[in-house]
């Protein structure tokens, strides 16, 4: 298994495999001795050499974060065989999706389908826990589609609109 892993913006080439009942692991070609136990779903007890770490995996609305002790890292992992990887890389060019960062209620839609928007322009407003959050356009372009309506309840990661 080979992955491209990006941690807080810096990327690493990770090779992981199992043979004779051991993990073998290379980071950017360098061999690393690892031993892992899954203590709970999303909680790994890792030994790297004799160093011990508890790592927790935070998955919210398509985002991936890893906690090493109380340090929190944003992570991206690409793997030719993983769907998520593919869709991710696809995201980089072409139309951009606006997704809901958290569950909430769409209280206002600020633009109409087909309208031109500047990068950073507000597209719609989502409310949760008595606070309103303006979802902004990630790029200059045209609102290709609006996939929600005022008053609608949305979940984290739901696609609300597409800008192209």
């Amino acid at each position, binding site marked *: 298994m080979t992955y491209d892993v990006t*941690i807080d913006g810096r990327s690493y080439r990770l090779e992981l495999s199992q043979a004779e009942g051991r993990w073998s692991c290379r980071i950017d070609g360098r061999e690393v001795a690892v031993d892992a136990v899954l203590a709970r779903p999303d909680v790994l007890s890792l030994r790297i050499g004799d*160093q011990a770490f508890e790592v927790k995996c935070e998955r*919210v609305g398509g985002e991936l974060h890893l906690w*090493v002790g109380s340090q929190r890292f944003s992570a991206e992992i690409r793997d030719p065989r*993983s769907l998520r990887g593919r869709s991710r890389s696809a995201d980089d060019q072409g139309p951009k999706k606006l997704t809901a960062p958290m569950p909430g209620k769409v209280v206002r839609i600020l633009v109409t389908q087909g309208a031109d928007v500047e990068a950073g322009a507000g597209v719609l407003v989502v409310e949760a*826990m008595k606070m309103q*959050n303006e979802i902004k356009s990630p790029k200059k372009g045209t609102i290709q589609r609006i996939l929600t309506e005022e008053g609608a309840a949305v979940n984290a990661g739901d696609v609300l609109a597409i800008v192209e």
Partner: protein
Amino acid sequence: MFNKILIANRGEIAVRVIRACHEMGIAAVAVYSDVDRASLHVRKADEAYPIGAAAAKESYLNIAKILDVAQRSGAEAVHPGYGFLSENAKFARACADAGLKFIGPTAAAMDAMGSKTRARQAMERAGVPFVPGTSRGLESLEQAEEVAARVGYPVMLKAAAGGGGKGMRLVAAPRDLKSALEGARSEAERSFGDSEVYIEKAILNPRHIEMQVLADEYGNTVYLGERECSLQRRHQKVVEEAPSPIVDLDMRRRMGEVAVRVAQAAGYTNAGTVEFLVDQEKNFYFLEMNTRLQVEHPVTELVTGLDLVHLQIRIAAGERLPFRQEDVQIRGHAIECRIYAEDPDNNYFPSPGKITLLLAPSGPGIRRDSGMYEGWNVPMDYDPLLAKLIGYGTDRDQAIGRLSRALSEYFVGGIKTNISLFRRILRHPEFRQAKLDTGFLDRLLKEKEEVQTDPQAAEVAVIAAGMFAVLGPAGASVGEQTQAGTPGDASGNVSNWKRTALRESRH
């Protein structure tokens, strides 16, 4: 003593009051809205009544429905918690009329403190120090200009009915006064249906320090020491501690005696909090009185060894204070972190949703007051406070050490929380040196998160990311590592997880 108490609240505070009831052998009655049937306070209550739709005005703010439940359940008293109806004099009065004991001050005392201007007037008579300014609403821009000139710029405009920073404006110079006054008035009108605005001298980088008071119904009033609450964001407290690092015995006595005078001037009973602004020279000024139990009451409980909710209930039941002022001793140091469902990657915007995994800290010096549990779906309709993590220590350093340790054990999966923020706060040199003021947190959040990430930890994250990807869904079943394979034989473990996963899906 009461046999049955209704808790007119939800979340961690409802759970905390239910626990106090059970500890005292009192039956606890919960009320819940449509989205709270599975909430922890319903699980823990002895009786539970649905009171309507998610919107607070349909349920937790609906006086008629709550009184109806009190009647049907035969509850003898109501604990309002904080927020919702806790400072609503109309509710306190309605309880009294219905022959229910309201666990808190009288409606009259609430009225006296409810309006900041009326409170200031009462305090003036009681000779309580407060920030120079007007004790009445401003009649005109001219009056505002005249007062501002007298007390000196910068000045602060505040809504008389205010709270949570609504209707507040800082004015640095005369030319800004007009627009600020208009803005404050219209915002106050929108927020509280009352446009009354008054003016105070602005204290720059003040500390926010509050004094806990407790009064029985026989005229005995004591103070239980102060809480340092200077760490705020959007005028919301985030970290509180007791004692305040800058308050010595003498200052505590002086603040405490003023707080007792404030309470007595208002004919106050039960638990209450007198808030002060403290300037660089440690002068303290009366700000307002909170006529309820505070979110941060646990830090006072830890350093005094008392249980404020037990005492609230005893006082409401007509008991006398079981101790005198000289019996109150502050020992050790306590710090509270408010765990919110907030997204650190999105300006700490609320982040409700389903909790898929919960690792909760415990151990020496750690108290956890929580309203969440693994598998619970945090509703989007209410305040994002999930839990309070409180660390106690022999001294402030030990409290910080224990709290930092506990925070590194705390993990909430499935939603985002502000837990990572506390790590930044607790390691910050200024916090360690107790250099605190109400501007601290905004400054910290402007500082770029330490760019240089610990490279070793980052590599650990890389490896873990890969393993979680390899394990994939198998990660959804807990391993049986210890009994399987040879130790440290992770592939043995993995295959085991796979087996377990299969077994489970066969159900």
